[in-house]
């Protein structure tokens, strides 16, 4: 059994902290009694060695990019260069305060300002804010800008259009901004159904939120016409950058007609996912929307960087300070290291790897959409399901082979969906091995189905009872009554 920090005991005298220079009672006298804590927190007591061992052993129970192939569709689990960790950990960047005088933080402001320019260049937008902390935070920012824009035009807009293949954050962000969400259908080719879109476009539509390539991994070929229709109806076009790894150096959302773009630096620009964050979700806009960006913008005059003093039309602030600086600097260094050729190499290799895998897997799985894909693709385990094994079972069985599971049951419009994104950093050898693992699992369905149905067998725990977890929530450790910790 995996013991909790609360269930282990060794000496912890916190001697890594300096000694108190006054007696405790003298210190506490400075605060009236009624403000003081009455109960002690039931914290663990562990020596430094035991803390190190505990968390090191926990880490070994994780799959990660550093240890495993991680073809998790829509998440861009690429290699995160270690040099970026070192740079982000340097005292010049970690030991500075957001409220220092501008002249004392010119280095940090330079990084942020140049990053705004880099991202504008890569996406074809006019200006960027780096404030949003993650993709969904970026969506929130973009939709607030959408609202501010329409208000400035004295237009009342109530709806946001979202394709039925979209991520859940899109409708959730729209709801947070008070919009009614209207779904746009996907056609048989896996693209936004232009006819359906046109029938839903009217003067109540604030914007259309899209990814391109879409969540099926397909490039929206009619994007120029889509943009024209949305603009003609008085709406804005919003780009969800979840799939930007397909487009770097190849084409730009700004040129397609998108008015607002958010990027996920933790996908395309190599910020490690950190088991679920921190990410960074910068937002770029076209000229006519710059005035609405969150305050403060970072500007440059001659060699001096500074914060914009006033921003009367700004949507305000989305978080304290200026964004996830430690994540932004990683991406900044990544873009500098790669340079223009390296950036093009991202998407070229991501697209090549994905199409190669798709070609190889055609003989094993149903492919609901046959065109060339971009950086990822969705296959269907529907024929496997007929033989008694679901996408979920295959996903779990992959874990036994040391491969993290693809995204499954998403997008919602594909039956038994498995969404696979190999990224540009994986080798052909790894991809070939992945194909052969999937082939073996497919054969196992007929030879030894229980093996697949009961997978995983080699992970620290077997299939987890999620229903029990939700029905009887145990969300924290509680010390047993009367126990002394």
């Amino acid at each position, binding site marked *: 059994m995996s013991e909790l*920090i609360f269930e282990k005991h060794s000496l912890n005298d916190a001697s890594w902290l300096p000694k108190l220079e006054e007696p405790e009672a003298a210190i506490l006298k400075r605060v009236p009694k009624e403000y003081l804590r009455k109960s002690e*927190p039931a914290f663990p007591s562990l020596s430094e060695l035991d*803390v190190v061992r505990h968390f090191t052993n926990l880490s070994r129970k994780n799959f990660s990019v550093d240890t495993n192939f991680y073809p998790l569709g829509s998440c861009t689990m690429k290699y995160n260069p270690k040099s970026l960790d070192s740079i982000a950990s340097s005292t*010049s960047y970690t030991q500075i*305060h957001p409220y220092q005088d501008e002249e004392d933080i010119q280095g940090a402001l330079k990084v942020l300002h140049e990053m705004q320019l880099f991202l504008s260049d890569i996406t074809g937008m006019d200006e960027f804010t780096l404030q949003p902390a*993650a993709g969904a935070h970026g969506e929130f920012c973009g939709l607030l800008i959408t609202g501010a824009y329409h208000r400035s035009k004295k237009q009342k807009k109530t709806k946001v259009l979202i394709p039925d293949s979209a991520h859940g954050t899109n409708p959730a962000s729209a709801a947070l901004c008070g919009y009614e969400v209207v779904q746009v259908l996907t056609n048989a080719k896996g693209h936004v159904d232009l006819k359906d879109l046109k029938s839903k476009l009217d003067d109540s539509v604030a914007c259309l939120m899209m990814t391109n390539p879409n969540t099926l991994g397909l490039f929206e070929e009619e994007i120029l016409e889509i943009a024209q229709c949305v603009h003609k109806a008085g709406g804005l076009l919003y780009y969800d950058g979840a799939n930007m790894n397909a487009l770097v150096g190849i084409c730009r959302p700004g040129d397609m007609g998108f008015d607002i773009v958010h990027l996920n630096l933790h996908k395309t620009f190599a910020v490690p996912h950190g*088991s679920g964050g921190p990410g960074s979700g910068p937002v770029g806009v076209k000229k006519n929307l710059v005035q609405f960006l969150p305050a403060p913008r970072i500007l440059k005059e001659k060699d001096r960087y500074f914060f914009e003093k006033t921003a009367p039309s700004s949507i305000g*602030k989305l978080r304290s300070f200026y964004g996830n600086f*430690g994540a932004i600097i990683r991406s900044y260094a990544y873009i500098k290291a790669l340079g223009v050729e390296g950036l093009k190499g991202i998407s070229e290799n991501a697209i090549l790897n994905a199409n190669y895998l798709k070609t190889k897997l055609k003989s094993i799985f149903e492919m609901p959409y046959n065109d060339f894909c971009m950086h990822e693709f969705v296959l269907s385990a529907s024929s496997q399901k007929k033989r008694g094994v679901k996408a979920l079972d295959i996903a779990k069985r992959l874990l036994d082979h040391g491969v993290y599971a693809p995204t499954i049951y998403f997008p919602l419009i594909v039956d038994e969906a498995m969404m696979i994104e190999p990224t540009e950093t994986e080798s052909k050898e790894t991809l070939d091995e992945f194909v052969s693992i999937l082939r073996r699992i497919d054969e196992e369905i007929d030879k030894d189905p229980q093996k697949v149905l009961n997978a995983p067998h080699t992970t620290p725990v077997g299939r987890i009872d999620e229903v029990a977890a939700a029905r009887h929530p145990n969300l924290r450790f509680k010390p047993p009554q009367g126990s002394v910790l």
Partner: protein
Amino acid sequence: MQYISNTEKDKQEMLTAIGVPSFESLIANIPKRLRDFELKIPAGISELELDRELDETGKRNKNFKYYIPYIGAGNYDHFIPAVVDRLALRGEFITAYTPYQGEASQGTLQSMYEYQSLMCELTAMDYSNASMYDGASSLAEAALLALRFGERKKILMPETVHPEYRAVVETYLSYAGSEIVTIPMKNGALDLDHLKKSLDQNVAAVIVQHPNFFGILEEAREISDLAHRAGAMLIACVNPVSLGVLQPPGEYGADIAVGEGQPLGNSVSFGGPHFGFFTVKEELLRKIPGRIAGMTVDKTGRRSFVLTLQAREQHIRREKATSNICTNQALCALKGAIYLTLLGKTGIKKLALLNLSNAHRTYERLLKIKGVKPFSDKPFFNEFAVRIDKDRDALKVNLKKHRILGPLDLQKFYPALRSSYLFAVTEKRTGEDLDQLIQAVDA
């Protein structure tokens, strides 16, 4: 520099297998006019050159290694033991995704559960989520939760709450159909009389930051009672380090307790990334935003951890979710959990005492200087404001000359508060630091 693993030969073989002559054939469906652009980004460089360049850029920042920070206002210069980063930067933590496949993510999931447990103990609240973006957005989400819970539409927010937090709450509530009522301050704390007058049947929640932006301890117990008597919730925004000695929000009856997790093992890093913590009373559990890890069993009965209560979240509920949050600040929260574990029961109290002692000794010495006067007579924790009747620019020059960063000139956020400065003093400040500071202010 490139991080590609395929050789030219591999690529050729892959194109052949796909059955196309060149890469261009794979993207032939992208309209021609979209392909016509040149990036302005310069050519790539080696890791060695990158290192050198970022090092040069970094020299244009005055950092805490060579300068002495007396600046806080939401981010604090605490000591971080080496263990924290050594563990959190392990590839298995830093390069893993959100633990959706529980069986392959037990390390992250158990550490999330332990983080939640630690935060509940620290705040004396019932439940915690796995983290939010930062303190400010946690506070905003807390206000949204209070509004979601019933029909009431007003949020009372004191002027003593961090000005940037107030701005973020305003942004988040733009479309919530609610009204934010500002409670003015008196003697550095929120004006209780004004609060009493503002409490009515339509108030969903009262926000209190404690210690507040000025470092001052608010009368949390009384504010809590007043809010509850009016049928409103209390949202407490707290400094986690202060809870080593100060009454935790659970003890004075807060319904939601949030705050900035940075002081727990995360470096200041120019304001981010850090994490927001979010804790609640039991009855609010199923309405809270963000991810939660739970303990359960696998099919053979072994203890296991998994993301749970996901029916609240955007990937399941879409537009009906309790929040749009997806990626949070997991790694920063992990650092928080490791840091709190290293502190243990003895350490959390000791840390708070060190801060309390250092801040008060600094305050006492500053007040002995001619022209330095109290800002308020209310109690404080590790941050305080004083009035310094000296020329603003001369004071600044002197502080710089003595390698002091800060204090925060309160005029930045409160134009009416002239000659008032906010000092933060953590366990890191030494006697020599203090001598430097005194010389600088006394010059």
